[in-house]
């Protein structure tokens, strides 16, 4: 029997592959980043991570008991992700960017679009759409986080986890999250919610790719 998770994987596979095969992403995987571009990458990432829990909270606050299992999943997930923007700040500190500079940083229009869409979708489209954001970002972290970490470490000659603690730890940690997310996705039954999750996943893959293109 086909589950929603495999439906989601199949329906969004093209978007995932387009992210994976965009020339900028390929270039980063192959050659890593200069220190300047890595700083910009982390600054963008800081604003992704900062808005992750508020977006989940906005979605959870709009979920009826029909989707209680998703809402409870989000509570747990937010607890696990709480404070992770500090990890990005620590990595930024290693590459010479102060917390004040990170907070004052103006995200690219691509990132504003990404965060804006996720808030809008949770508010106006369907609160379960947030699972599309969670899925796309966890795929990026758990599937591509490893190669990205290796590429950046090699190009910047970083030692151990210094300066890459956020992406290297999420490459491993999000593997467990992915298994938990699959269980929750398979409990989503109504078509409106499923359609919104698929749309959100496709948008998040697309837009995260645009963010990487602009750094």
């Amino acid at each position: 029997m086909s589950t929603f998770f495999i439906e989601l994987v199949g329906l969004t596979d093209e978007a995932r592959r387009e992210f994976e095969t965009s020339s900028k992403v390929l270039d980063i995987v192959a050659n890593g980043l200069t220190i300047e571009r890595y700083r910009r990458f982390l600054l963008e990432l800081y604003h992704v991570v900062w808005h992750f829990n508020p977006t989940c909270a906005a979605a959870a606050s709009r979920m009826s008991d029909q989707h209680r299992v998703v809402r409870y999943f989000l509570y747990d997930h937010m607890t696990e992700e709480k404070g992770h923007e500090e990890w990005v700040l620590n990595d930024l500190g290693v590459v010479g960017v102060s917390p004040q500079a990170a907070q004052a940083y103006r995200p690219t229009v691509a990132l504003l679009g990404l965060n804006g869409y996720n808030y809008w979708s949770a508010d106006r489209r369907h609160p379960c759409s947030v699972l599309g954001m969670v899925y796309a970002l966890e795929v990026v972290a758990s599937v591509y986080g490893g190669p990205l970490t290796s590429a950046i470490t090699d190009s910047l000659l970083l030692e151990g986890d210094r300066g890459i603690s956020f992406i290297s730890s999420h490459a491993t940690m999000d593997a467990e999250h992915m298994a938990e997310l699959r269980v929750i996705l398979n409990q989503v039954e109504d078509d409106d919610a499923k359609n919104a999750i698929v749309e959100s996943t496709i948008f998040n893959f697309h837009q995260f790719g645009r963010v990487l293109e602009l750094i």
Partner: protein
Amino acid sequence: MNEVVNGLVPSALSRPYRYVKLEWNADFAMLTVRMGVRPIQCYSLAAMAELQQVFTDITAHPGLVRHFVMASDVPGVFNFGGDLSLFVLLVRAHDLDSLRLYARRCIDLVWWWENAATLGVHTTALVQGDALGGGLESALLHHTVICERGAQAGFPEVLFNLFPGMGGWNLAIRRGGFTVANDLILSGQIYTADQLFRRGLVDIVVEDGEAPQALERMVHAMEPRFRGTMAALQARRVAAPISHDMLLTIVDHWAVTAMSLNTRDMRLMERLARAQVRKVGGANEGAVEEIKRMELDTAWGFERTGVSEWATLE
């Protein structure tokens, strides 16, 4: 009504494909399918769906296609097999059912190739570049394998604790015998075109760039004895049978094995993928060279130091 004009694909087969290009030779009723999944040529879900559609259309119009040719539209690469990122995604999601579903879709394709002779279709693989894992499996599926001398191929799966699950064992045994299959699959070694020929795994080796001419010569020579050849190939299936049940049993075992891949195994897969990405970007060395480095390290690094670089990956 189907056109039979050279170059113009009959309308019964023509569709707006994205990952496969169809070419038609009306003189021999020969359909060439050029797969082009860029930048890394592999069996992605979308490419597999398109290939399945091509097979469905051929099956629905008996007699229209007499020769099926599988080729690559990506220079230097025939096919690198499965979509490694999709594997990693499903393994990390602990999703055995979905991995099994993907694997069974592969077997659907394998089964069409295996039955092509009963449809009156002779199949040829035009290997003009490297073939790894599922890419090599798909080449060995064809009745005739024409390989250019610069191409290299192998089953590297054992290096990351997996094995070729989509017919690799059956096809290697059928073509080269048990000893050759053992070496090919259990060593993880990469073979040159000449080494593959000496082991009976490919039928014809030609110089680089000469595979299309070799194909034409072969098809031309086969023409007067086409019916007899097809009958013999059907009989060959009886003599050396590969059953659907056998393929499904092995692929289910493959999916269960894939679920036990650990972080080190997946790092190795990622490393191969990254090497190939670098090659696409202009570097001299890709996945094949990375595998060779792993072989050397296993053979000599461990010999000298007791530790292999690959063994220490976590």
